[in-house]
């Protein structure tokens, strides 16, 4: 019999990962083990992972910091809600506009990043985010101010009305596509240019990497992913308050990629689960711990930076190495 050997390609991994994520709502329906409110938490986590992936391109690969992720995500969320509910535009049209507008602003921030670095760039992006948040509070005719803006589950192509479960599938598909495209870009010429820029600006320009162009691309990619996440958020949670898009959310994105792993695509998703899903699913059940998720994140960041600078995603490799060592030890002892 001939053995059929299929070479394992990275995209297969992403697809399998997506299928595994998509199975969670099914489990919720058929078992009592997973509660139906869990889908909202997991769906939210997947949405945040999409935005965190963008921040990882920016900070992990290109070495440019941004504390403005929440603001851009919020802007996209409000725009999409306003266009679908108030203007009655199709979901696809509002998706495109809601991604384009924040991306243009993101590219402008990229222009600023040529002049300021590090800490000051963090402050500048934070300022942009806060301006956006203040705008959400004040522009009531679009955002409905403090009372919050509601939206509906997306309607695809004008006649396919999604419900909670199918919107969840849509979100998983968006995440898988985002992971795949990010992987492709970061392992090619563009990703190398980002890495070169982070490593040494002078070496990068000596190799012909035009910093302005690649900074703009990095900011554009990060904002596109943040906006996509914003649109998904408002049509999945179906509500947006100005207070959601605050500094804490931006810092949470930072925590996700640092804890999960800088420059790691799976690590970003792992980080999102650690920062969002675990406190929500498990810690909230324990009376004393329910307010401690902030503390947990802080402690985790310190632990990870000290012991796992490349992120918790690498813990797998270490366990495997330890296991191999142990097995070898047992094997040797057996002789």
């Amino acid at each position, binding site marked *: 019999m001939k053995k059929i050997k299929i070479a394992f390609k990275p995209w297969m991994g992403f697809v399998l990962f997506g299928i595994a994520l998509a199975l969670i709502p099914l489990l919720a329906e058929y078992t009592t083990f997973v509660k139906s409110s869990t889908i909202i938490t997991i769906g939210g986590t997947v949405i945040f992972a999409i935005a965190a992936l963008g921040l990882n391109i920016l900070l992990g690969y290109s070495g440019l910091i941004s504390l403005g992720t929440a603001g851009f995500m919020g802007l996209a969320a409000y725009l999409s809600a306003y266009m679908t509910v108030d203007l009655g535009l199709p979901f696809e049209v509002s998706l495109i506009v809601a991604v384009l507008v924040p991306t243009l602003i993101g590219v402008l921030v990229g222009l600023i990043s040529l002049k300021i670095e590090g800490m000051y760039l963090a402050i500048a992006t934070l300022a942009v985010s806060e301006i956006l948040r203040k705008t959400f509070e004040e522009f009531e005719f679009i955002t409905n101010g403090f009372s919050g803006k509601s939206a509906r589950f997306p309607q695809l192509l004008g006649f396919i009305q999604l419900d909670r479960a199918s919107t969840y599938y849509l979100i998983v598909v968006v995440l898988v596509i985002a992971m795949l*495209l990010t992987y*492709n*870009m970061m392992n*090619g*010429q*563009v990703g*190398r*240019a980002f*890495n*070169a820029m*982070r*490593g*040494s600006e*002078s*070496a*990068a*320009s*000596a*190799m*012909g*990497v*035009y*910093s302005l162009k690649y900074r703009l*691309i990095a900011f554009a990619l990060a904002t596109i992913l943040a906006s996509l996440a914003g649109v998904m958020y408002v049509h999945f949670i179906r509500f947006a308050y100005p207070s959601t898009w605050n500094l804490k959310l931006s810092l949470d994105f930072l925590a996700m990629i640092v804890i999960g792993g800088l*420059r790691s695509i799976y690590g970003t998703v792992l980080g999102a689960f650690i920062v969002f899903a675990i406190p929500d699913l498990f810690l909230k059940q324990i009376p004393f711990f329910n307010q401690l998720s902030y503390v947990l994140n802080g402690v985790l960041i310190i632990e990870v930076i000290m012991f796992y600078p490349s992120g918790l995603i690498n813990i797998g490799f270490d366990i495997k190495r330890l296991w191999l060592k142990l097995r070898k030890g047992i094997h040797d002892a057996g002789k």
Partner: protein
Amino acid sequence: MMLENNELLKIEALSIQFGGLKAVDQLSFTIHEKEIFGLIGPNGAGKTTVFNCITQFYKPNHGNIYFRNIKDEVINLVDLKVHQVIRQGVVRTFQNVELIRELSILDNVLIGAHIDYKTGVISQALRLPKAVKEEAIYKAKAEEILKKLGIYERKDMLVFGQPYGILKKVELARTFMSDPKLVILDEPAAGLNDVETLQLAKTIRQIRDDFNCSVLLVEHDMRLVMDVCDTICAINFGKFLAQGTAKDIQKNPLVQEAYLGKEEHDE
């Protein structure tokens, strides 16, 4: 025509001033095709500044830098931006190796081909056939260069943790990805031991022949300079001192004075 037939780079009355300090003062020299040209001088003579002027990291206050580029046109490098210089066929290494520690050796070398990629972000993200093909071509080219430099076996290892001699070679390999006409080496022997330095001399001659380019090097290791360079230019305090073969330079009283100091005569 600013350049004679076999002239590659001509520096004409180059001057640059930092505040009140004249780092380079009315310096002129010419590098020919397939020449190994050494620039020497005591510490603070302005050698690295000359490098940075050629590669446009610094903009000179005065002077011209004519270069015969890949398309055989004569251009003035002063008119270009830093990231455009490599397209003309001038590529440099750095005194303190500037590589990306988190990437593999092969990926680091591939950065040298950055300007040659024709496909854009979108075709790369979608892995369109032309993008895949392009990546394969440059990967093969990088592997070829790594083989020539004898570090092919390490291509998939991370740069982080590699010995210094290997890092220098990786940086060298990176420069050849762009098919340069002029390779500028900033203190290639710094940090290498005696054996590695001897090897380096061999490598420099070999790359000149294999890749058909000129080499401009700044170096403190006099043995290497005297051994490998066809022509040497000595400068001090940013000013031209002497130019000639290794023997001429060693005999030149001005150069001896610059390195060893003036002889004191008792009256």
